[in-house]
């Protein structure tokens, strides 16, 4: 496996930790955008130049690097919040969990044999640890917006695996997938707005009247 992509993939890991450890929403959104852009670059580098590759990495860059961060920035401007206040599990414990998960991801990736062309690539461990990062964000944070961010990081993790298979996924399906992702974020944005209006905060803790 060519080393530039592995170097770029290695960059993803500190980004994950930064997002897990940071309380400032603006910085989190920017880093997620950076992560998305790096992924777009990786998908461009890993495949021979063709219309298909250009479309895939171009649309990934536009969506993950520009459009969605902008949507999220607009959301935080509208609801006027800057920070995540006390997550359910503190920052240090989440970082420790993230580290453990990353170690687990490296161990687990041995179990999945890569084909010759991809041997030596860091895609699997990096992909898995990005998935876990997203999952931790989704489960431990209280702000609806941070949960959306977690969902985005989760999707980035899925995208990393998708890079392995970019040749196989027909164009239309890819386009559909990216579009669905965009719409999902959009709908979530609208609901965040509604939550904000109804509850005058975006704390998911307030969303707890429905329980047994």
């Amino acid at each position, binding site marked *: 496996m060519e080393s530039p992509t592995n170097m770029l993939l290695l960059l993803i890991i500190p980004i994950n930790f930064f997002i897990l450890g940071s309380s400032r929403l603006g910085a989190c959104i920017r880093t997620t955008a950076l992560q998305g852009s790096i992924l777009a670059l990786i998908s461009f580098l890993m495949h021979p130049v063709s219309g298909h590759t250009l479309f895939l990495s171009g649309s990934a860059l536009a969506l993950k690097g520009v459009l969605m961060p902008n949507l999220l920035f607009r959301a935080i401007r509208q609801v006027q919040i800057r920070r995540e206040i006390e997550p359910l599990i503190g920052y240090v414990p989440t970082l420790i969990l993230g580290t453990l998960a990353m170690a687990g991801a490296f161990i687990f990736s041995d179990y999945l044999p890569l084909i010759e062309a991809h041997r030596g690539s860091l895609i699997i461990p990096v992909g898995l640890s990005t998935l876990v990062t997203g999952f931790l964000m989704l489960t431990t944070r209280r702000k609806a917006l941070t949960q959306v961010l977690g969902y985005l990081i989760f999707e980035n993790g899925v995208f990393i695996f998708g890079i392995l298979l970019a040749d196989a996924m027909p164009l239309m*399906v890819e386009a559909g997938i990216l579009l*669905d992702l965009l719409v999902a974020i959009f709908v979530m944005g609208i609901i965040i707005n509604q939550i904000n209006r109804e*509850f005058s905060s975006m704390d998911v803790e307030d969303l707890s009247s*429905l329980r047994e």
Partner: protein
Amino acid sequence: MITLLVLVPVLFALGAYLMPSDRLRPRLLSVAGFVHLVLVLWILAHPVPITVGAWIGLDPLGRLVVLVVSLLFFCCSIYGLGYLRARLHWGNRIFITCMLLFLAAMSLAVMARHLGLLWVAVESTTLASAPLIYYNRNRLSIEATWKYLLLCSVGIALAMLGILFVAYSILPAAPISLQLDDLLAGAASYSRPWLRTGFAFLLVGFGTKVGLAPLHSWKPDAYGEAPGMVGALLAGGLTNIAFLALLRVMQIMAAAGEIEVARQSFLIMGGISLFFAAVFVIKQPDIKRLLAYSSVEHMGIMVIGVGIGGIAIFGAMLHLVNNALVKGVLFLAGSNINRCFVSKRREEVAGAIAVVPASAALFIAGFLAVTGSPPFGVFISEFTILRGVFSTGHFALGGYFLVMLAVIFIGMGSTVLAVTLGPPSARANKGKYRDTLLSVGPPLFMLLLVLVLGLYLPEPVRTLLTEAAGVVGVIR
């Protein structure tokens, strides 16, 4: 021809969005439901064999599910005529547009013969139905919508990951194709670790949408807060679509010779679902949440049927039809009671039979049907699945199954009888609702269908069920 099943609802959705009148729009919904149902019946009467390698096509399994979905949608759209007229001030442009897009997405999922396309369609059902759950626009419905959207989106992202893993398992033996026929043809040579990991992700992903315990936590909230007609479509349409997706995965596992792994996981998930349903049904104070746990139970039963294989798969297919129709009856009748009392809490609703006799009677009949009392169809399908369970020697599972069914019967019964019988509570008539033909007709029609399915299985239906079961596994 079958593309019309998607195109027609999309066009109607566009029409509904552009239509200026809130008063006329519900009629458009019913017309769309009717046209869709007629199309489905026509396609079923003139089945076209699927083209191998095509991205869309209706195999027997798809035909069965699309028939159920279309029938349920039509009944709900008729119910909507009265329901939406009573709430004209609330506006219905977004609601009806999303209903129709929801129908289009479900139809697409049914006919998808490409895993990528299937994924897109299933995700679209989530997105199209989220605004439906939010219809009441209050705090509780926001909470329910948020949970639904987030949980199902994460679930579906996991399913995407599973699809990618399955695709990777094909390498390097063959060029990757996610088309179902290609997948089934080549499955025997796939890389086992990738395929199994992919299966685990797909099971969790689509299982979240099916609402199998312990991944069901969106269900009670979404069903509880959505309007009754939406609840019916979620319980009888959306969950069946996700179940169909699971069956597609099962097909691939069977072709790869990994059927035992899939079966065991299905049995475990089904067993857990029965347990969760039984625990939460007891003393459940909310009639709609009660129905949600009943849905968890019945999806669990279907999954168990498929996990057992053989005759039980036939039972599971029949159960799919029965469950969808009975859920339609219960949600619509329950919604009527809710409209009359403006509450769905057990402590606030009592004696519905004296105020809205038809709806209350339907609710009781629906309860008897859903818990598997003869002579309703659910009895036959549960009995068939149980026969499969015992004849394959799963005696412990069979006993557990029966105990859970009994617990659920008692648990549901106490709430259902408390809200329907006895002297009416003070809240009766608070909603100024009276039973009308439009609000009682559709659930009554569905109840009669379930009754017919229990007494006599018409030959075309039996053939369709057998063929559908044959897609999933060999009938022994």
